């Protein structure tokens, strides 16, 4: 209860929709927490940013990977059409730093999960199941649709939670602070009705 009061105050101040969170049917905190402290992980990612800027002359970012893959696939089907699109003219699909970075992120996630005994090997997260049941098809449809909207938004905004949310904000880029605030407003506005209505 003592935790609910400040949480309600913050929620109300942050976003009126959060008022619906009054009687949460689902509590995300009953599931497993992080293996390491967020402050250790955050410090690690901050230091990692120094390294990527210094050694690779690149900010950390993830969403470009998906645009590269889209370009590769597009070129397989229609090289001319793909190369005629303004986005791919300015950002030609290439196997570059951003591409291998995200492939390695998958491997890094595997190494961490494996060493920590957290390899899940599951199609549905327990919290999703508790709310939406056992249908993998439903999960696939929602995640696919969400992915389309998310990538479109990332390209329009100019980056994702990594490129804007971490790398851009730490450079005090105005675009990134606007974008990351909008990420959370949009996310909260959809997540709360999704789970609490």
């Amino acid at each position, binding site marked *: 209860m003592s935790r609910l009061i400040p949480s309600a105050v913050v929620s109300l101040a942050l976003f009126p929709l959060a008022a619906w969170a009054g009687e949460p049917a689902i509590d995300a905190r009953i599931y497993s927490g992080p293996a390491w402290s967020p402050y250790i992980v955050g410090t690690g990612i901050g230091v990692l940013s120094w390294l990527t800027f210094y050694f690779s002359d690149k900010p950390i970012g993830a969403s470009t990977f998906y645009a590269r893959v889209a370009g590769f696939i597009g070129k397989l089907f229609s090289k001319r059409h793909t190369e005629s699109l303004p986005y791919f003219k300015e950002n030609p699909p290439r196997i570059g730093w951003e591409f291998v970075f995200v492939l390695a992120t998958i491997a890094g996630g595997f190494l961490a999960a494996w060493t920590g005994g957290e390899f899940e090997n599951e199609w549905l997260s327990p919290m999703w199941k508790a709310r939406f049941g056992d249908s993998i098809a439903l999960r696939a449809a929602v995640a696919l649709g969400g992915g389309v909207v998310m990538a479109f938004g990332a390209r329009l905004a100019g980056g994702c939670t990594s490129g*804007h949310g971490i790398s851009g904000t730490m450079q005090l880029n105005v675009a990134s602070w606007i974008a990351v605030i909008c990420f959370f407003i*949009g996310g909260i506005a959809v997540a709360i009705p999704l789970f609490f209505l």
Partner: protein
Amino acid sequence: MIDPGKAVKTTHAEQPWPVASPGKLIGGVIFGLMFGFLLQKGGVGKYHILLGQLLLQDWTVVKIMMTAVVVGMVGIFVLNHFAKINLHLKPTKLASNIIGGLLFGAGFALIGYCPGTGAVALGQGSWDALFGMVGLVAGSWLYAELSGTLKKSVEKWGDLGKLTLPDALHIPAGVVVAIMAVLLTGVLFALERFFPR
């Protein structure tokens, strides 16, 4: 004397997908591994931790991001001050940043992963991330298809070019960095006080 190795004409013109230099790629692999490892240990490959943040229950995501921003920001501005690194600023385009940001957030709530943490989720065996990743590729393609129209419309609205907080506020970068570091650290202490997780 002619070096036969150098006399051979190497061309990438025949390659369908150009490849960056090995030095760049090795950097991308090493840093990507570290990024994925840290994110998984931070718990942000987990659906319930990411959704927990959007439901304002579990504050792990914001704690990691803010810590990374404080640590990263101080290092980046010191390194940049001594001309050791370049900043990589994405242009501020108000309409694109806001609309794209809100769409991104809505998609985030539906997938439950973002582009980077989705890669981590796949690595840790949360196979539902695959659906989201397919959607992200499709959404990137959709953006590329519409990029000509978007460039002539939405992306022109409120285009302020490359803009940092110090420039916008007319305050020296060092001062803004110091203020932001104190402010964000204060927010982190408050968060930890009210939301232990």
